[in-house]
């Protein structure tokens, strides 16, 4: 990773941070409805892994904390914000919402709201890649709490026994909704659990993007070379509550402060400043440009976009004009 890459990644992570913070404001203003799960604190996980993978080429799937993963894969932030606003121009045409961002043309295969649901879906995409003979891999980003679902065990077992090209990334932010990991999970080191499925695994600091990137390179290389699945555990922390309705009462201020001091954006920023690659002023200017871009382009687009027409309520339930419904073309 050279300095130009690092500066680009700093900008991408800062954009993601400001995007999510702006979502928070829009939610408070009641422009965004439903449930909203934000990503601040965990940015180095998504950006570090995807830097080692091929965004737009590899198939990515995740849970409901999905805005940033979609954007990193290539989704237009304007369309993601419009989706949160429920607009027809949204990435899922306003039918999905925050938890269901999709951008299939960039191979972002969706955010899913059932905890653990994507584990077998990712294995299935990997099975399809294998059948079709492509060099893509499937990457599944989920949190630590998803590993207590049956799908984790079922999917990892199948991925291993069939040597499927799938990378499971566990963003271990230490909490499943509001329950701390040691209160819900017998083995808190998640990478240890996959030994049961004979899958190689690693656990690294998820706050330092360079560390994530180096670990992800090994993981991606393993999976892409046909050796089967890999499990990468990234130790991280979310700075906000599980969702907007979460008061964070279950975490100590000391703990929050400790993790705030390990902010992935500041770690990279300070490193670039120390190396003489970036000045404080440049950073501030970058931040201002991003905030302006989000306001003047992203929010403006979402605000001004049309609502989906009510006449199209039943569109997308089933395939349109599928000839096989009527026994094929006569």
């Amino acid at each position, binding site marked *: 990773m050279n300095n130009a890459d690092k500066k680009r990644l700093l900008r991408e992570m800062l954009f993601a941070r400001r995007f999510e913070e702006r979502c928070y404001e829009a939610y408070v203003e009641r422009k965004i409805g439903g449930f909203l799960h934000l990503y601040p604190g965990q940015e180095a996980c998504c950006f570090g892994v995807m830097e080692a993978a091929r965004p737009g080429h590899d198939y990515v799937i995740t849970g409901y904390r999905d805005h940033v993963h979609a954007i990193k894969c290539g989704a237009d932030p304007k369309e993601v914000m419009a989706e949160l606003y429920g607009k027809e121009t949204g990435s899922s045409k306003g039918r999905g919402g925050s938890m269901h961002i999709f951008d299939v043309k960039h191979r972002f295969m969706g955010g899913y709201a059932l905890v653990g649901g994507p584990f077998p879906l990712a294995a299935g995409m990997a099975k399809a890649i294998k059948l079709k003979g492509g060099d893509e891999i499937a990457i599944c980003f989920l949190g630590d709490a998803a590993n207590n679902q049956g799908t984790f065990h079922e999917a990892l077992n199948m991925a291993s026994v069939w040597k499927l090209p799938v990378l499971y990334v566990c963003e271990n932010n230490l909490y499943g909704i509001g329950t701390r990991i040691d209160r819900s999970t017998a083995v808190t080191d998640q990478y240890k659990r996959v030994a049961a499925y004979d899958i190689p695994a690693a656990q690294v600091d998820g706050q330092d993007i360079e560390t994530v990137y180096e670990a992800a390179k090994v993981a991606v290389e393993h999976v892409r070379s046909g050796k089967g699945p890999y499990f990468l555990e990234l130790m991280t922390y979310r700075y906000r509550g599980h969702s907007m309705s979460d008061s964070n009462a279950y975490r100590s201020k000391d703990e929050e402060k400790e993790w705030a001091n390990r902010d992935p954006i500041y770690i990279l920023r300070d490193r670039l400043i120390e190396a003489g690659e970036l000045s404080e002023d440049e950073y501030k200017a970058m931040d201002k440009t991003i905030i302006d871009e989000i306001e003047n382009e992203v929010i403006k687009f979402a605000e001004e976009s049309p609502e989906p027409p009510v006449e199209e309520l039943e569109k*997308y339930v*089933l395939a349109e004009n599928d000839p096989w419904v009527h026994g094929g073309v006569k």
Partner: protein
Amino acid sequence: MAEMMFWEAVRRAHDEEMARDPLVIAMGEDIGVAGGTYKATQGLWDKYGPERVIDTPISENGFTGLGIGASFLGVRPIIEIMSVNFAWLAMDQIFNTAAKVRYMSGGQLEAPVVIRSPGGCAHQLGAQHSARMEKVFMGVAGLRVVTPSNPRQAYGLIKSAVRCNDPVFINEHELMYNMKGEVPDGEYFHPLEGSEVAREGKDVTLFGYNVSVHWCLQAAEILSKQHGIEAEVVDLYSLSPLDRKGIVESVSKTHRAVIAEEAEPAVGVGAEVMAILNEECFFELDAAPVRVSAANVPVPYNHGLEKAAIPNAKDVVEAVLSLYGR
């Protein structure tokens, strides 16, 4: 037209579709080396190999989800769930993913999977192997539900379902795999929507699907020979969507209706057909429609109790006679 057994028709549909398209795969418990509990995939493992005829672990939610994920990338999985009772475990992936992904992605992604599973009561299998779950599947938007009553339908429904871009659940019956019937020699694609008139009649319409079509046909013979009543039998092979038009057409002619179902009555096919009759042709009815359904109990093991819980042709005859006050 050649006569073949139901399982042979299912197997033939798999074989033809797998020969045509290398992205059609079959998966399920014991379907490969063992050839399938009901022989529906016999010989296919030898012919197409383990990458396309996949013996899965006993992980219903996992392998159903895996098939759905593969379908996102254009693979056409035919997933066999060995017994419909085990489909309860896969409901998360079927309902939360397959049925909803087209809608919640705004039409970007689809899950063209075929999920086949036998259900029904099959002689003393007990409460956890006798579920009739069609009513559960037909209540969810985004999923097609079909249910064959004979080998021709079994063959033609799989052929169409594999090619259709929607997820399709095919409800089969454990007791019907050895049933014989005629299947066209050439390729045949059965519609996934609509209904079929299995027997024409003018006095009363008997609605059945899957195994209950046969009770209705037997009942119609008895009614004709012993009671001078000519019953029309309508085969509701598509449970979602139900054929509103076909249901109304037949009852507008006969003015009487009985619905036969192997399942418990609540929230079922009978309830739904009665609602359609209320909504569409209430004033065509000469008598209130009647349901013939199973007792509302977990299916008992004891032979006599099980028999008492599940309806049959005699119950259909009695229901029709009740419409005439006999």
